[in-house]
């Protein structure tokens, strides 16, 4: 993610997603987009901005509020040779259309003995931190990653967003593309400067299932995805002040999961903190810790997780901000590990 460009152009994640989709649509007429308010409005989170103007309503289709129908339709179209990209506006809304996703999209390849491909991308917004309440603020990473048959990616910055989107569209399998609202660069959800990075103008892919070492270090490995990476980076800067060298691993993909990169990192540092804005129990944090433990990696202290408590996301900022993962909580987790050594 440090390719130097002559012009050193940067993008927000929202723009990077739209650019990737537009570039694929220009070269592959099978790619089309469906979703609520993704047409003229450009998506509630800006990730289809400009597509309607360039490609028109035949290929950039606003849908009724009928997720069961249009995500099911994407499965059918993908099985018949098209490459649909559909948007589920908030991941919290998956309930109404999950059959189309996990019983159809994710299983049709298997049920057909590999004869039927389902090359579709389902992009969906995640995350909270801005008091949108418990039906518009969840991450639900593990809910999707738990179920076999679909790849799951989630970028923390614009470079990865463009490359992962390109790879996702080209992948012959269904891919869930989860983007965190607060990292979109829309302004009205605050701005995470570290998510707005240099993005090449040409087409490129970031491979699905390959984690990135976002920051190298030797004393502790902090593993995260989307917002968790940024909390990890901030914590690493604070730990540096204390003379602690933290390595930050951005998983980028939950499925396939790059266990090797995490295991190698923990072999080096001997300590592991896993950060996730998704719920604490039965989640990504547990999966990572289990994977490292199963691999027999010797650790200097019990691994720690910093995740969302097992409660519906509260509205009021005093509760919500208290419950969210943060750099401070990661630093505290590290201190706790040191006490136990």
């Amino acid at each position, binding site marked *: 993610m440090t390719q130097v*460009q*002559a*012009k*050193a*152009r*940067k*993008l*927000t994640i929202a*723009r990077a997603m739209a650019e990737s989709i537009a570039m694929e649509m220009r070269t592959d007429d099978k790619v089309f987009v469906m979703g609520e308010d993704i047409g003229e409005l450009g998506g509630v989170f*800006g990730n289809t901005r400009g597509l309607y103007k360039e490609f028109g309503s035949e290929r950039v289709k606003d849908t009724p509020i009928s997720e069961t129908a249009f995500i099911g339709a994407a499965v059918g179209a993908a099985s018949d040779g098209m490459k649909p990209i559909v948007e589920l506006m908030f991941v919290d809304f998956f309930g109404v259309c999950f059959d189309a996703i996990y019983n159809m999209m994710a299983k049709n390849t298997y049920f057909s003995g590999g004869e039927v491909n389902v090359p579709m991308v389902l992009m969906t917004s995640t995350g909270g931190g801005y008091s949108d309440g418990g039906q518009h603020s969840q991450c639900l990473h593990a809910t999707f990653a738990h179920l076999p048959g679909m790849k799951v990616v989630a970028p923390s910055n614009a470079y990865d967003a463009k490359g992962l989107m390109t790879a996702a569209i080209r992948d012959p399998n269904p891919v869930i593309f989860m983007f965190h609202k607060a990292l979109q*660069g*829309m*302004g*009205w959800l605050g*701005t995470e*400067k570290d998510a*707005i990075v*240099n993005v090449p103008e040409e087409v490129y892919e970031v491979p699905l299932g390959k984690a990135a070492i976002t920051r190298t270090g030797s004393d502790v490995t902090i593993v995260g995805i989307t917002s968790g990476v940024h909390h990890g980076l901030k914590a690493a800067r604070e730990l540096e002040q204390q003379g602690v060298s933290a390595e930050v691993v951005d998983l980028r993909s939950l499925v396939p999961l790059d266990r090797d990169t995490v295991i190698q990192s923990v072999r080096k540092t001997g300590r592991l903190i896993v950060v996730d804005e998704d719920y604490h129990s039965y989640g990504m944090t547990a999966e990572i810790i289990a994977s490292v433990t199963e691999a027999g990696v010797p650790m200097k202290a019990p691994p720690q997780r910093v995740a969302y408590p097992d409660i519906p996301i509260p509205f009021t900022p005093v509760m919500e901000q208290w419950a969210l993962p943060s750099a401070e909580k990661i630093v505290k987790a590290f201190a706790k590990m040191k006490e136990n050594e």
Partner: protein
Amino acid sequence: MSTDVLVPHDLWEEDDEAVITSWLVNDGSEVSEGDMIAELMVAKIQYELLAPTSGTLSIQKDIDDVVAKGDCVATIA
């Protein structure tokens, strides 16, 4: 010689102040006239700031800074 990058008076209708939500080029990098270099937000709407000329961009105002129409946010030399 350097050119000030001013917030255009016709970028949005009213005279509300805006907030810089992104710089879309690195400080100190080359830009071409017409390149999108930043996004400004008024209320909940983003507006695109284009480079008025070609040259090397020097950013004067940071993300989250409040700016008004006519303010200088960068220079291009």
